[in-house]
């Protein structure tokens, strides 16, 4: 059942040191900046963070990394022109990096939410990112075995929620939110607004409320300026 919290700080207050946290967003779009900055405020340490990137500029995920709270990043594209917070920590040997091809990252998160124990993917076969992993030829094609990425918490930014936690997203800000919401023990979502139950068309729900544990309304959420990079 969904709890609507009064502030981002309330929503993330119990995330303990050492937690694994899925953080939504592809670069700035869909990044739950207010939830992440609340996490900076709580002082939680030794986090393992799963995100497509490793922070942009000095807000949100970049601020969390800059504050030294992240022990390990699992992501596909850490190096960006404005990823200086990560770059410094990485070069100083203060942060661990697990690099995962973007589609495998998405599928591993989905697998965790879907109760799949592992899957054979063609992506990465024959490359350094498959080294040490089991490979198999199936029906004439080569595959690599990849395992699920589960987490203790997911921080997600959606657009609209109803009171039972059904979610819709906006445009390409949808990205990792729907799969991350399924893969964490506790899913915390910031939304632009909460509408009454019954006010959302059941056909257009993207994330059913069963996946949502806590909601916080952030009407004027920060989206960092988009800038070029993969």
């Amino acid at each position, binding site marked *: 059942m969904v709890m609507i919290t009064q502030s981002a700080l309330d929503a993330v207050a119990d995330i303990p040191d050492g937690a694994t946290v899925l953080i939504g967003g592809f670069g700035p779009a869909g990044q739950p900046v207010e939830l992440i900055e609340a996490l900076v405020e709580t002082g939680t340490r030794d986090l393992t963070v799963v995100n497509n990137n490793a922070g942009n500029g000095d807000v949100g995920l970049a601020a969390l990394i800059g504050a030294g709270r992240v022990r390990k990043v699992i992501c596909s594209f850490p190096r960006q022109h404005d990823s200086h917070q990560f770059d410094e920590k990485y070069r100083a040997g203060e942060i661990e990096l697990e690099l995962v091809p973007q589609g495998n990252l998405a599928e591993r998160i989905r697998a965790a939410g879907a109760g799949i124990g592992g899957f054979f993917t063609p992506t990465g076969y024959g490359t350094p990112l498959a080294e040490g992993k089991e490979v198999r030829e199936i029906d004439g094609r080569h595959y690599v075995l990849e395992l699920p990425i589960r987490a203790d918490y997911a921080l997600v930014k959606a657009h609209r929620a109803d009171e039972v936690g059904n979610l819709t997203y906006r445009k*390409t800000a949808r990205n990792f939110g729907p799969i991350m919401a399924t893969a964490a023990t506790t899913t915390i979502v910031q939304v632009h607004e909460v509408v009454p139950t019954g006010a959302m068309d059941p056909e257009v729900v993207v994330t059913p409320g069963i996946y949502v544990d806590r909601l916080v309304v952030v009407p004027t959420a920060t989206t960092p300026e988009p800038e070029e990079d993969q």
Partner: protein
Amino acid sequence: MSSVQTPSTFTEGPTRLGKAELAALVAADIPDGAFVNLGIGQPTLVSNYLAPDSGVTLHTENGMLGMGPEAHGDDVDPDLINAGKIPVTELPGASYFHHADSFAMMRGGHLDICVLGAYQVSARGDLANWHTGEPGAIPAVGGAMDLAIGAKDTFVMMTLTTRDGQSKLVEACTYPLTGVGCVSRIYTDVAVFLIDREGGDGSVVVRETHGVSFEELEALVPVPLRRA
């Protein structure tokens, strides 16, 4: 299964192609109605040369089909960006989907063509385009490996040689691989190459040259070539 035609006979053009000309050449080879992903950087230019009535639909792997041109001014919406994180627009008939669905679309072979840049491509179509392998470089792969192996055809756009004159079309890649046997065509400033991904006799077919003769090209490139 390739959705593109294997064309025609060898031709020689008088001058090297500029980036815009190369983009136009690639665009001309994209069939009407194709679903296409254009990689970051030079491949993005291809969209400028697609005829408006071509019915070509652009995919961006961060979760959209029907991507329109870059957004400017009041059209910029921070929730609507492409894989390069540049604000873009939405065309009629667009759709949005989450990352797992987007990469399933790619990995499942539903896109007709993906156009990518490259550091190196081998005669068998191995691609290296994500990492120079230099010590100290922070590795970052993004969707490169998914893009490389997902589409029915993967086209590479690149200059044929590095700044110090080394051919990027090689017998075997020395840079870390992005994908194995995935490239079907290479569009460069001086030639267009067709790769036989089944292996064949190990030679690469040259469809056309620009500003060099076939023999000059043979001298530049360390793999056996033959005319289309």
